[in-house]
């Protein structure tokens, strides 16, 4: 005991309800979007509040400490624009 768990393979037919998450495992979900967030770099302070709120993990941090959007997977929900305290994100219609 005290050595931590020992992983041991099942010895009967076995399926567990697990997945290994990987980017884009169901395709590029950015195509589901009807409007896109646009970041105004001059207003962005890099506070990362949008990153904290984004449900899809599509807020990227740029080399100059600001944020950018991963449009391949952003579904355009608009949460980032709604929470930004500096009005640095706007939603722009794509249709």
């Amino acid at each position, binding site marked *: *005991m005290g050595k*931590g*768990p020992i992983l041991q*393979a099942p010895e*009967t037919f076995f399926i*567990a309800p*697990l997945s290994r998450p990987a980017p884009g495992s169901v395709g590029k979900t950015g195509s589901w979007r009807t409007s896109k967030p646009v970041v105004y770099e001059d207003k962005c302070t890099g506070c990362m509040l949008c990153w904290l709120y984004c449900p899809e993990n599509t807020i990227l941090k740029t080399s100059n400490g600001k944020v950018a959007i991963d449009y391949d997977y952003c579904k355009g929900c608009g949460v980032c624009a709604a929470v930004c305290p500096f009005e640095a994100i706007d939603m722009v219609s794509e249709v």
Partner: protein
Amino acid sequence: MPLMSLTGNYAVAHAVRLARVKVISAYPITPQTTIVEKLSAMVENGELDAKMVRVESEHSALATVFGAASAGARAFTATSSHGLLYMHEVVWWAAGSRIPLVMAVVTRAIGPPWNIHVDHQDIFDQRDTGWIIGIAQENQEVLDMTLQAFKLSEDPRVYLPVMVGLDGFILSHTRAPVDVPEQELVDEWLPPRRQPYVISPESNYVMGNIAPDEVHFLMRYSMHEAMEAAKTVIKEIDKEYGEVFGRSYGGLIECHNCDDADYIIVITGSWSGDAKVASDMLRENGYKVGVARIRYIRPWPKEELEELGSRAKGIIVFDRAISMGGYGPLYSDVAGTLYSNGGKTSLVGVIAGLAGVDVGAETFKETITSIIHKIEENGFFFEPQLWLLPKDYSSREKMMEVAKRWL
């Protein structure tokens, strides 16, 4: 090995201590409360090196130990009745996720009306969840079955959670001599924690995904296969436990007076002891009656019952639970087994002892005698639902006296 005077609940706590459980979480509910109360004291005084997590509900209690177990800790919880029903969703999650885990269920009637006394409605309500479900007869077996549950649950052929049932108050709050094994011996016998996967920040596993319908179907099949394998593992563990600690119980069922029996009583839980006393008394009266006490309702001891059914004149099943509009749950499984085996044995299902109504050895004896007379007079007797009503309400007129109060 020290002999201690322990309630059934304290016997559970000592087994959990001996298994060196790492995470415990529970919400108090009668008659379970003194299990985690005792464990809490053991953690506090340093007897047990574990994390005790207080939560706001039973749903969270099982979710907490399920999470801890997924992350690699040997974990334990306990509950009863309404608490068990409240955690029912997570009961399915734990089994479907194939995470080794042990839970004690102190059996108790379900309301309304509020009632804290024993019946088996709560534990049978978990029958189809994929948990291995054992039910003990007395306090020594409570300790042994709980300790064995960790080994069983963590066996790579099984990887399913295990419930250990013990009857409310009859066992949970009644002291009896219990032989408590030495820690060193348990450490030698019980291997370190084993599990099929560990969820950690590094493992990159996610639980809670969806899967194709066909894969979901196959998961059900895989759990059934693990249950079938568990039959072998239960017998193996029972045997080796006997070699190390001196006690074996017979695997999935324990037989009393079965060898030459014409009539077999099928029963589970603490009142099996009364049924055994009745069987001894009936033998003195010349009736060859045996008791097949079901130790595990899942996996179901199909093979053992087929064998008993093939040579007995009659099988009498006592259920301390009822599927209203259907049958007693033990009866359903016994009937399924016997009929699948082409059986022509007389078969009777008795519904008794609901809501804690006491059934003593004399009552067993009288009931069984009258059933045997019907079988012997007619050559065959089939009665799926024989209601053994409480003594003062045994006629329709007397039952109506209660009902009239509400009219």
